[in-house]
């Protein structure tokens, strides 16, 4: 095993440990001792990788956000239809939250409480989603009249729903909420009727790729 492999593996373990600890007791209460204890590495190893607990937090946040965004892009990128892209992107995002609740919590809950650099990074990540949503203006019958801040508001709403479930420790319930989240996101662009139809259609579809579960 190369030294490079060990180092990157250690880094990943430390990040995962921080996310676990932070989601259990809140970032501010977490100590470096907690992190190294859970990661099973020495204190020296921690400081070889990160200058401080805060630096480690930012790395965890970056890792989680970029992984989630990658999944969204993978899921949405192949599709032509905007509403399908939004739906696929949101589905991928929610699935990530369910699979990695601790990391999701790190970048969506703890990030807001971890100080200005983290909040700034959170804001920047949100912008990546904004550009995907903005494409909806081209397909909307009243795209030119939509308020300038619409994407920010829609995403703020979606993130708030996810945030609340994470705070309550109900991350696993979030995937079942996909149809209503999709409907909420599409309504301002396509109108309630079309938004509902599209959200419901997917729900009724028989998944051929195995990633659709029956949500009645």
């Amino acid at each position, binding site marked *: 095993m190369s030294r490079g492999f060990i180092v990157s593996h250690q880094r990943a373990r430390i990040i995962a440990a921080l996310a676990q600890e932070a989601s259990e007791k809140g970032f501010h209460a977490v100590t470096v001792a907690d992190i190294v204890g859970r990661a099973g590495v020495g204190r020296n190893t921690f400081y070889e990788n990160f200058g401080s607990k805060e630096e480690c937090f930012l790395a965890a946040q970056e890792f989680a956000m970029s992984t989630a965004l990658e999944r969204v892009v993978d899921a949405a990128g192949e599709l032509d239809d905007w509403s399908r892209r939004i739906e696929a992107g949101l589905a991928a995002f929610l699935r990530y939250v369910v699979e990695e609740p601790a990391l999701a919590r790190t970048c969506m809950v703890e990030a807001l409480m971890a100080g200005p650099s983290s909040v700034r990074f959170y804001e920047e990540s949100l912008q990546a989603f904004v550009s995907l949503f903005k494409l909806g203006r081209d397909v909307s019958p*009243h795209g030119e009249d939509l*308020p300038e801040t619409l994407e920010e*508001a829609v995403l703020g*709403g979606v993130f*708030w729903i996810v945030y*609340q479930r994470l705070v309550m420790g109900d991350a696993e319930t979030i995937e079942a909420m996909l149809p*209503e989240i999709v409907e*909420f996101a599409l309504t301002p662009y396509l*109108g309630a009727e079309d938004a509902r139809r599209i959200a419901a259609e997917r729900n009724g579809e028989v998944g051929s790729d195995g990633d659709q579960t029956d949500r009645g």
Partner: protein
Amino acid sequence: MRDPVDQSVEAPEFPPELARLPPGRHGLPREFVAHNQRERLIAGLAEAVAENGYTGTTIAHITRHAAVSRRTFYEHFSSKDECFVAAYDSVMAELRKRVGEAFDQEDKWPQAIRAGIAAMLDFLSSEPHLARLSMVEALVAGPVVVERYDAAIQGLVPYFQAGREGRSEEVLAGLSPTTEEALVGGMVSLVSRRIFANRTEELEGLLPDLVEFTLTPYLGSTEAAKVARQS
């Protein structure tokens, strides 16, 4: 955007906790002074937090702004956190009161929503320090405050739920159990992002966007835009 009815009521311009009693001897009853000291400490905390952020604020900063002794601080609060919670609660009580009053004054729900949002934006933009304390610093001030913050936001949900009343089957079918939660979350995120970036002067300009965004699920976008652009 001032409330016209307020002139007949003896309503203070400013929450009493956040107004200040001039320092010095005044021969006031002890209980009044004690109460007033507490209010001064709360005001002092708001100023100190505006200057240094929650994390950078010390008890010395608070007592300096409040012009009281350290000992007085500890007669009222056991810690900076406790003082922050008191400040947060009084800011939110004032905000809640203003929003509730503005909302209640309108007969029609869409106009009531508009008035409530206008009152919120008016308060936050005229008090940038308190806006920052309640929407930005609150999140770094520990779990007790964060819990209150979450509850305060969810507390706005019923204002929007009231919009379901009397809607057609078709409109109701387009609303999900979490529609209001998402609307409130979206609204707060627009507002707090500007406060975080020290752009409180932009808040009042958000009124039409926020009104249109929140009314669209109930009225459709054409009607929502009409209410949003009313003056």
